[in-house]
């Protein structure tokens, strides 16, 4: 087991190194010139070149990458010596566009995204698995139709549509909720909650749709399994049968996908964050794309990659725990 974990970790580290290098390369290959963007239209070419040097974009890519990596472990000074800004380790770079250490930006936006992701995740699992179970158990009858219909709606309408609709109905037309202005949970729990409740539901509805279908189909498939018939033949109660036999088996693939979905969400829920004005990782990334803010892009890509790599490892271990057939010995 220890060996498995070590091997997994080593693999993850190598993977992250590759992803970071790839990210670096991809973003530097984009046509937009981050140095040119630092100065406006009556900007002299010499200033652009000086800014390029200041931002470090004049150096060979390998050197830029090495410097970036070093910053993660040792911290780094950015800018000219006399007026430089120090970002302590782990430094993910400095955004000359936002004038802040990227680590600070990530640390500020990540809790927002995490709050959004966690709440939405719990909701969508409850809604998705709950409705899916009801649909499977009442197959062909109205609860099934309702749940299936819901899942079609959730899948068909884009997040921004459902999000805007929610804003219209709950904020603008009925005034049931104030317009969300995010506050940290420690700062103002009530505002935290009111700013997140709609996005939680919107994200949950959109994502739950898939889980309704997955749960329903998974359970129906499992119900046809011989071992379920054997369970009935044993004389097991319906509840025990559904929980220990049907759901237990149907949940294995769902848990796997849910783990990855959650990790993906932690990397930033771009659309939802934008519509509900949640200053999370997704919005940070989006703004960085618009501004060609390379350090932020590399950092958010890396952070998202870390989540996904970690989630993959966790899901692997969890999968082994959930399904004895793939358990490592």
């Amino acid at each position, binding site marked *: 087991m220890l060996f498995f974990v070590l091997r997994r970790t080593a693999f993850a580290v190598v993977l992250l190194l590759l992803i970071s290098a790839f990210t670096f390369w991809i973003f530097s290959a984009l*046509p*937009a*010139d*981050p140095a*040119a*963007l*630092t*100065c*406006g*239209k*009556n*900007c*002299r*070419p*010499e*200033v*652009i070149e*000086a*800014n390029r040097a*200041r931002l470090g974009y004049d150096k060979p890519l390998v050197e830029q990458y090495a410097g970036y990596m070093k910053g993660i472990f040792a911290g780094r000074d950015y*800018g*000219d010596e*006399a*007026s*430089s*800004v120090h970002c302590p380790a782990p430094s993910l770079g400095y955004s*000359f566009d*936002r*004038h*802040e250490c990227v680590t600070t930006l990530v640390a*500020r*936006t990540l809790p927002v995204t995490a709050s959004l992701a966690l709440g939405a995740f719990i909701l969508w699992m409850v809604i998705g698995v709950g409705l899916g179970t009801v649909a499977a158990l009442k197959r062909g009858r109205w609860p099934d139709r309702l749940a299936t219909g819901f899942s079609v709606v959730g899948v068909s309408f884009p997040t921004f549509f459902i999000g*805007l609709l929610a*804003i*219209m109905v709950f904020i*603008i*037309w009925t*005034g049931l909720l*104030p*317009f969300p*202005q*995010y506050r940290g949970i420690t700062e103002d729990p009530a505002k935290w909650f009111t700013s997140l409740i709609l996005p939680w539901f919107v994200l949950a509805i959109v994502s739950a749709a898939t889980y309704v279908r997955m749960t329903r189909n998974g359970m129906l498939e499992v119900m046809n399994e011989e071992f379920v018939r054997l369970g009935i033949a044993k004389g097991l109660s319906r509840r025990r049968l559904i929980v220990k036999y049907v759901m237990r088996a149907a949940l294995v693939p769902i848990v796997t996908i849910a783990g990855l979905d959650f990790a993906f969400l932690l990397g930033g829920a771009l659309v939802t964050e*934008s*519509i509900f*004005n949640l*200053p999370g990782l997704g*919005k*940070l990334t989006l*703004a960085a794309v*618009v*501004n*060609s803010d390379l350090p932020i892009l590399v950092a958010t890509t890396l952070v998202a990659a870390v989540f996904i790599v970690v989630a993959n490892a966790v899901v692997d271990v969890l999968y082994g725990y959930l399904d004895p057939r793939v358990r490592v010995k």
Partner: protein
Amino acid sequence: MRNLKRLSVAVIASAMLFGACGGGGGATSGEESGGRSAGFDGVKDGGTLYVLTSQEGVSTLDPQRVYTGAELGAWGSTFTRTLTTYKPVAGKDGTTLVPDMATDLGTASDDLKTWSFTMRDGILWEDGSEVTCGDIAYGVSRTFAAEVTAGEGPMYAVSYLDIPEGDSDFGSAYPGPWLADADQQALFDEAVSCDGKTITFKLKSPVADFNYTVGLLAFAPVPKAQDTADQYGLKPFSNGPFKVESYEEGSELVLVRNENWSKDSDEVREPRVDEIIWQFGLDEAVIDERMIADAGDDQNAIVYGGILPENLQTVFGDDNFKDRRTDGFDGFVSYTMFNVESVSCVEVRKAVWLALDREALRTAAGGPFTGEFAKSFVAPLLAADYAPAKLVDGLNEDGTPNVEAAKAMLEDAKTACPEVYAKATEDGLRFDHPDTDTWKKNIAIWIDSLGAAGIKIVDNPIEPSKYYATINGDRGDLMRAGWAADWANASTVIPELFGDGGGFNYHNNENDPAFADFQAKVDKAKAETDRAKQSSLWKELNQYVIDQVWSVPGSATKSQNLVGSNVRGGYQWLPFGWYNIGGIGLAG
């Protein structure tokens, strides 16, 4: 004024200060001043003013880096004072220069090369310490620090102050306060000196309206002890009626009242609200819906960014919005520059103008709400210096092309300048423009409408972020641009765009036969201290440029806005094309 850096890509393309712009079905555009919301009917002190915007943040709070009309006005009216400023009132009077930190509008030497200003008493920083002359000098010195302020703000300090040229990034011998050694610092201290409360600026050449120049925030004070270099824009030190309590890009900017500001030291500002909160990163469509619905706190809100085209009909087609909406010029004029050296034939330049389907271009941008066909390179907002010029003969008022006139003009060119004629009709004129979606549409209109008159256009799209850097070196025959005045004087338009050493002159017009005469008149206008006389000189010069067709004027662009029903004093402050935000009050 330079565009918002953030929006630079979109803005360069549309040459507009604010992101969204016109369109409009049945509603027609005409100027609207905001009705009740522009006045102070029922205003009370206190309350929180909200500013809703789809932008992720402001472009900067660092006074030496600000170069956006709206932000220059917003920060100037709230937390950072300057020696002079504009009178915060609606209408033409709003472009009147008034003393702010200075006791008067400054004293110039006879040769207009030395300007002195004396500071008022009792101007304090937010920590209660006094704003000194040295703080102003230090603030000005920051402009020189390319490694910190990155050339984002206006560069007048560098181009005007009497400091020798040198090898700093900005071509000055003085590299800014961080990198300067004692000798270099002495150069600056010589050009900007303090004697008690009097600050004296020594200039390279005469500048008649230098007292306007010091109204730019680039000439605002910064206390050296508080300067965090690149990060100063996150929490600038205040000496105005408001101070920055917190600023998080993507989230909020909170301005609260500065207890150490007193009315006694400030004859200009009249703060009314307790707090101004900017909310960033809102969805544009959501902002419009909220403003139209006008519920709760949104009644105390203004918008930074205009109204979406699809909502203009709703807002301007319904008189219920009469007291909450504004529609006016934003200070920008878009235009297309000729490379006068390569298109050295005024007949060809005129033919291009006559053949261009300006109406199709405006329709593609969104119709009449986006602006009016420009009749001057000076924006209508610059009331004193603006006069519609007499345009080329045969130009259609409605913006449609006059193919016949264009063809006739080309015939003239055939004999007058056969080489340029051949180039325009056979090789084609290379058109440089930023490679944006807007311009993909626009260039097709250019090619089609000019093609109808027999002029060939060679499309040369340039990656948007590299556009100005590219045309700085390699210029085509036609180039897209947009400009607004840096202060309420056409001295920041005509000389900048067309004059010798103009910061934004890409025309290669120095060798044009008409140039020497033009430049002589420009120099005369720059040195004219009688404002009225100067104004008529600018108007003459504008007509001169129009006659030479060094550039084809595009649109004097407009923007539309909607405020919450409690907002008072929400008039468009002409020099900045936006509200005097520090003076807005709330009713009810």
